[in-house]
């Protein structure tokens, strides 16, 4: 990335390719499969636009993860609704580096919020269920589902850079 900041296009192209692979894994199961590509693309564009914000004296992955988390929450906020819910097994089964994932993964961010909020977000925002379906499934009232989503998203947004 430091080379890219200096304008090395070759190094940058390699880096983008690796980031693309990494991001697909990072977001797998954490966003509806139909919008995964969109999210990866948006994140790469953010990376490009905000490349001056990378501090070359620090590690690269925590920076990329901060940008990825910000874009992820942004995408969850846009109410994606879809009828078909199929998990992309190929991506979901992709082994990712457990040490890195444990530290900067999205599970960690989800783990920071109360279980009921995380459940509501997973069902509605990631799996694409309706509020009514989620209410039935979880026993939370419809308005509670909405409140839980709202609160959980807010809390996660505030904690993007905290572990």
């Amino acid at each position, binding site marked *: 990335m430091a080379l890219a900041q200096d304008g090395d*296009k070759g190094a940058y192209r390699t880096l983008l390719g690796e980031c693309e692979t990494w991001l697909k894994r990072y977001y797998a199961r954490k966003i509806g499969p139909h919008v995964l590509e969109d999210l*990866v693309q948006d994140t790469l564009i953010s990376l490009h636009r905000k490349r001056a*914000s990378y501090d070359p004296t620090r590690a690269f992955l925590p920076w990329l*993860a901060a940008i990825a988390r910000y874009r992820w929450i942004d995408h969850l906020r846009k109410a994606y609704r879809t009828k078909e819910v199929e998990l992309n097994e190929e991506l979901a089964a992709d082994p990712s580096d457990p040490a890195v994932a444990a530290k900067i993964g999205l599970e960690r961010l989800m783990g920071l919020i109360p279980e009921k909020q995380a459940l509501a977000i997973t069902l509605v925002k990631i799996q694409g269920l309706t509020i009514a379906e989620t209410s039935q499934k979880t026993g939370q009232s419809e308005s509670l589902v909405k409140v839980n989503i709202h609160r959980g998203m807010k809390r996660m947004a505030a904690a993007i*850079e905290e572990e």
Partner: protein
Amino acid sequence: MPKGFDLDSLAEELTPVKPLSANSAMGGIIFLTIVGGIFIIATLGFRDNFMDATATDPMFLIRSGLLLVLGAASLSAATSMARPAVGISRTGWRWAAAAALIIPIAAATAALVSRTPVAERLHPANGVECLTYSIGVGLVLGAALTWWLRRGAPTSPERAGIVTGLAAGSLGTLAYSMHCPHNDIVYIGLWYTLATGVTTLAGRLLVPRLIRW
């Protein structure tokens, strides 16, 4: 990948960038604070007998010192937010803000048991001048900080707005404090807190819209 997007063309668009430097942003804001202080002294003058007595007045030293620490802590948090990374904690400014809250709390307590009517201790005309100049200098500093944050990638725009407003307000008030002739805790507790509070609120409300990405 959807149409119109491929990594090759993104890489082709690459132009060299200079990594954002938090130190130069801090330096710039400190420079602007000094300019603000000089502007205050040039237009309103120093406190009376500055060199003799009032520069060593305990209340002057305490308030300037607190504003300086609060300004430094929030400025450092605000500038570092332009360069995100998972695992960074920036909570130091909260402790500085908590310490600074001692002033309004002490002022409120003093006002409650005051023998002189509190209204006489507040000098509203001077207070309005204090607000005008502190907030005025603060706005310039806040605008500069916001411009800096726009270039970066703050992941928590609301919090970045709060620390931006807090840094701008405390440093703006610090600049005005070079002129402010009052040493009364009740006066300082009201007007200084108000000045810093207004800029912090403005930062929280306005800055996030400007720095989202």
